C-alpha cells in the first residue's frame, strides 16, 4: 500500500502548490482532481475484478471537464492532461478482454494519475516563471473563435 500513501502525498503537494501559486487553469484542475479523487473513493468498493461502471462515469466526467478546459486555456498542458485522462477512460476496456486481468485493470486505471500530478507541478512552476518574466500570464483565450488569423496578401 506504500504506493497509495506516496500518491496521496504527491497529490496533496501538487494540489496545494497549484491552488496557492497557480493561475486559474491550474487551480481549476487541482479542484477537479480533488473532487474526482473523493468521488472515486465513494463509488469504488469492489476491487478491480469486474467493470466498475460508477468509476467509469467518474473518469468520463473528469475527462469531459478537462476537455472543456483545454479548449479555452492559453496553456498547452490541459491537452496532455485530457489525453492522459482519456487513456484512463479507455483502460476500463481491459476488463472486457476475453481473458480479463484484474491486476492489469487496476494498474492501467491508476498509473496515469502519477504523470498528471507531476505535470501539474511543472505547469504551476512554469506559470510562476512566466509571471516573473512578463508580470502577467493570461489564463484564457477565445481568440480562435474571433477569426483573428492573419489574412494572406
Amino acid at each position, binding site marked *: 500500500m506504500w504506493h497509495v500513501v506516496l500518491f496521496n502525498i504527491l497529490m496533496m503537494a501538487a494540489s496545494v502548490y497549484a491552488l496557492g501559486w497557480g493561475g486559474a487553469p491550474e487551480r481549476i484542475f487541482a479542484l477537479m482532481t480533488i473532487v474526482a479523487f473523493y468521488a472515486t473513493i465513494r463509488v469504488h468498493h469492489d476491487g478491480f475484478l469486474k467493470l466498475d461502471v460508477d468509476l467509469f462515469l467518474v473518469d468520463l466526467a473528469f475527462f469531459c471537464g478537462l476537455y472543456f478546459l*483545454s*479548449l479555452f486555456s492559453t496553456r498547452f498542458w490541459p*491537452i496532455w492532461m485530457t489525453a492522459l485522462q482519456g*487513456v484512463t477512460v479507455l483502460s476500463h476496456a481491459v476488463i472486457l478482454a476475453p481473458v480479463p486481468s484484474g491486476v492489469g485493470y487496476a494498474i492501467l486505471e491508476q498509473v496515469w494519475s502519477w504523470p498528471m500530478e507531476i505535470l501539474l507541478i511543472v505547469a504551476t512552476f512554469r506559470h510562476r516563471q512566466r509571471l516573473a*518574466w512578463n*508580470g502577467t500570464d*493570461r489564463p484564457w483565450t477565445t481568440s480562435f473563435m474571433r477569426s483573428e*488569423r492573419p489574412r494572406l496578401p
Partner: protein
Amino acid sequence: MNALGIARLTEAQRVALRYFMERKTAKQIALELGITPKAVELRLKGARDALGVSTSAEAARMLAAAENNSAFRETLGGSTEVADSTSSRPYPAIDSESGESGQARDRKVMSEARAAFTHQPDRWQAGIGWPLPTEGNERNGLSLGARLLWPFLAICGIGVSVGTLVICGSLLSIACVAIVHLFH
C-alpha cells in the same frame, strides 16, 4: 525610487535587465551573452530581490528610470524599429509634451505596455500545429479544430507508445529467460 537597491545591482544584472526591456526572451539574452538561460533567470531573480519587486518588468522599469535611459522610453514609446525587430507586441505611443514627471510617465508607459501585452491576441499556429510551447510562442495559439483534435491524437500516441513499450519489454524478458535457460 529604491536607490539603495539600484546601487546594489551588479553590472551583469543591469545588462540582463536592459536586454529584458528590449523584449528579449531568456534564451535570446543567453545567446547574446554566451551564458545559459538559467543563468539569465538567476541574474534577473537577483535583480528582483535586490530591488524588492516581484516582476522583472518592474525591476527593468526601475533601472531604466534610475539611469534616465532614453532608450527605455523609445522602446516603450513607439520606436517601431525596436519593437519590430524583437517581437510583434504593440507598444503605445506616449506624449512627450504632456508635462508629466519622468517617473510618472515611466509608470504610465509601463502600465500601458503591460496592458498591451496582456490583451495581445494569441499568435496563430499554421495548420494543426503542435501542442507544445516553442521559443517565442509560450501561449497556446492552436485553432479550435486543433484543440478539438489534439487530445484524441495524443491518446492514440500514448496508447501506441505504451503498447510498444509493453510488447518490447515482454519480448525482452522472454529473451532473457530463454538465454538464462540456455546457459543452465
